[in-house]
């Protein structure tokens, strides 16, 4: 009896172990042309994002599949550590045919992508193709834009008799400072702040500065404008119009904004919109980033150099980035995945949230500075960390006029190694 039980259990285990995999080919199928001459076969498509974002992308892929049933798209949704997995797949020779890549990460992966030649006039701004370009060559086609705007707590504005900011024109930094001071009130755990702690990465652009020279070969973090941006951030901390380092430690500033403790939340991306839909305790709206600061993230679709079905991959990329219906689907997704790159599809995004100024995102997608990108991101990030470690922008006490030129010098050394 015992022996029989052992045999039965063993058999069950063997059968279920055999069901732990399939015999399908894990690589891409070689493409060929269908009877009508169009591409066909299988392609793989890698993308990142939370469940809701992945669902938005899967909807566009499904739409593509409906129109092109001869091309089978295998979604490779990578929930976390996207770049690590991508590096692994490229190193292991199993790179997906089509890869979602942000403009900030593109230089590090450019070697693995095919060069493309998208027509920049088709998109809402010529800067979109620029963000997919590295060292004069374009490696991806713009797909979606994620700009930054400012969310305001209208109740706090009304309480202090402050006129609501323009919905289309960015306020000046002087106006921002004045409003933040008026909103700030109270003490301790009930204190209300004018703004969340400001981030140098956004503020640089509000003061007319940038990370690099226009040709991307030299750090400009030591420019007078960059120093001015840094000094302004320090002044907001000293004036107490933003939470101090101890208060913000381990805290989500978005949670503070949702709790009504922050009047103006500057670092507001489209990913926060679903969260805002639940807000009932105060009135809110969106306005352009003060001083037209902040940067927009442009995400594009790249075709792997090792793709065995480049023809189908190109058809897929062209469809997702330039087809009206595809752009309407992704732009009009309720999760506010991002602003579509086709100017004719931006209305779908604006209509997601009735009564809220989502137009601010659309304007920013056209006017905001592109994310500046370099190949040696990790090394440069380490140098940039000196800013928060050593100056009062973060936890240090050294003068920004001394530290910023040092950081620029170190970054320039890294750039020269390229």
């Amino acid at each position, binding site marked *: 009896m015992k022996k029989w039980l052992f045999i039965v259990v063993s058999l069950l285990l063997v059968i279920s172990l055999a069901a*732990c995999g399939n015999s399908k080919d894990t690589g891409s199928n070689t493409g060929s042309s269908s009877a009508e001459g169009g591409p066909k076969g299988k392609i793989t498509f890698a993308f990142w994002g*939370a*469940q809701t*974002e992945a669902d938005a992308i899967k909807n566009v892929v499904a739409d593509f599949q409906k129109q092109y049933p001869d091309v089978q798209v295998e979604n490779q949704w990578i*929930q*976390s550590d996207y770049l690590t997995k991508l590096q692994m797949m490229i190193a*292991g020779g199993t790179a997906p045919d089509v890869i979602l890549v942000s403009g900030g990460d593109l230089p590090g992966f450019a070697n693995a992508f095919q060069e493309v030649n998208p027509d920049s006039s088709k998109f809402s701004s010529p800067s979109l193709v620029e963000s997919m370009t590295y060292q004069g060559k374009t490696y991806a086609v713009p797909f979606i834009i994620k700009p930054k705007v400012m969310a305001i707590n209208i109740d706090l504005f009304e309480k202090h008799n402050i006129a609501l900011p323009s919905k289309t024109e960015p306020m000046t930094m002087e106006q921002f400072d004045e409003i933040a001071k008026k909103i700030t009130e109270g003490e301790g755990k009930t204190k209300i702040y004018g703004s969340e702690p400001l981030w140098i990465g956004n503020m640089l652009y509000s003061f007319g500065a940038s990370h690099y020279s226009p040709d991307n070969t030299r750090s400009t973090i030591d420019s007078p404008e960059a120093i001015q941006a840094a000094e302004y951030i320090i002044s907001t901390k000293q004036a107490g119009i933003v939470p101090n380092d101890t208060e913000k430690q381990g805290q989500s500033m978005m949670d503070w904004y*949702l709790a009504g403790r922050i009047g103006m939340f500057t670092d507001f991306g489209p990913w926060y919109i*679903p969260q805002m839909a639940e807000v009932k*305790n105060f009135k809110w709206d969106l306005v352009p980033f003060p001083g037209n600061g902040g940067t927009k993230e442009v995400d594009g679709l790249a075709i792997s150099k090792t793709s065995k079905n480049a023809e189908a991959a190109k058809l897929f990329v062209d469809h997702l980035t330039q087809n009206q219906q595809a752009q309407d689907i992704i732009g009009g997704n309720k999760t506010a995945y991002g602003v579509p790159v086709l100017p004719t599809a931006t209305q779908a995004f604006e209509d997601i949230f009735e009564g809220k100024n989502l137009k601010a995102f659309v304007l920013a997608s056209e006017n905001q500075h592109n994310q500046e990108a370099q190949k040696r991101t990790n090394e440069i990030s380490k140098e940039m960390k000196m800013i928060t470690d050593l100056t009062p922008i973060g936890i240090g006490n050294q003068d920004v006029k001394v530290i910023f030129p040092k950081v620029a010098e170190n970054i320039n050394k890294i750039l020269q190694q390229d």
Partner: protein
Amino acid sequence: MSAKKERKNSKTAINILAYLVLIAGGVAFLYPFVWMISASLKSLEEIAVSGMNLWPGEWRWDNYVKALTSFPFGRYLINTLLTTIFPIIGTVLSCSLVGYAFARFKVKGSGILFLLVLSTMLLPGEVTMIPQFILFKNLGMLDSLYPLIVPAFFGSPFYIFLFRQFYSRLPVGLEEAAIIDGCGYFKIWRVIFLPLSKPALIGVGVMVFMGSWNNFMGPLIYINSDKWKTLTLGLAGFQGTFATSTNLLMAAAVVITLPCIILFFAAQKAFMEGLTFSGSKEN
């Protein structure tokens, strides 16, 4: 008499102090779990404003429904069970067999071989990640559960070490009697050593369960299609680069961590015995 009473009083005071410290420690460890349950029943807005307050203003039981229906929970659960049960079987069988050999066969070079096995623990996972990925690619096992199961059947240095330590403590007489009765080495391991090592088996089983159930990097690297994804990847889906659905994440986390907690409490005694038994060698 008074000295005895004094001693009794001081013992009581020490006991009270010890209990206070233990209760404080218990609360510190329990609080995150209670917070997780509390957050799973709140709205996002309430999580943002409630701070340390654990009592939900409005009980959102539908968070559980939303969380568990937003991804194919059943399929992910089956995959997680497969990638947990098989590694437990594989690890226990392979490691106890190898541990038995290291503990009992005193042959030339076995000490060096044991050191070699242990030294593989020094290699960080990042170093072997890409070669292992290429290995499984060449074996045609990518995008399946095999890379998460098969390695367990080839032993793991830490568990081999645990079994070796455990078997070293068992009396040699047992083995000698079995040999006189005509047992071969394999039968000695199967009939005598394996049944005697229950605490070690349960200890290792629980540790492999925890490691496999919570394994995130493995499924992330080897699995591409939804068909083979596991619960840890389902959890990661609630976390965006910038915004997180904390309430849904916590609801799913409560359901997913429940088996770990139940198993740990059920096997706590054997688990601790397994660890302490294998810690010292005394015959």
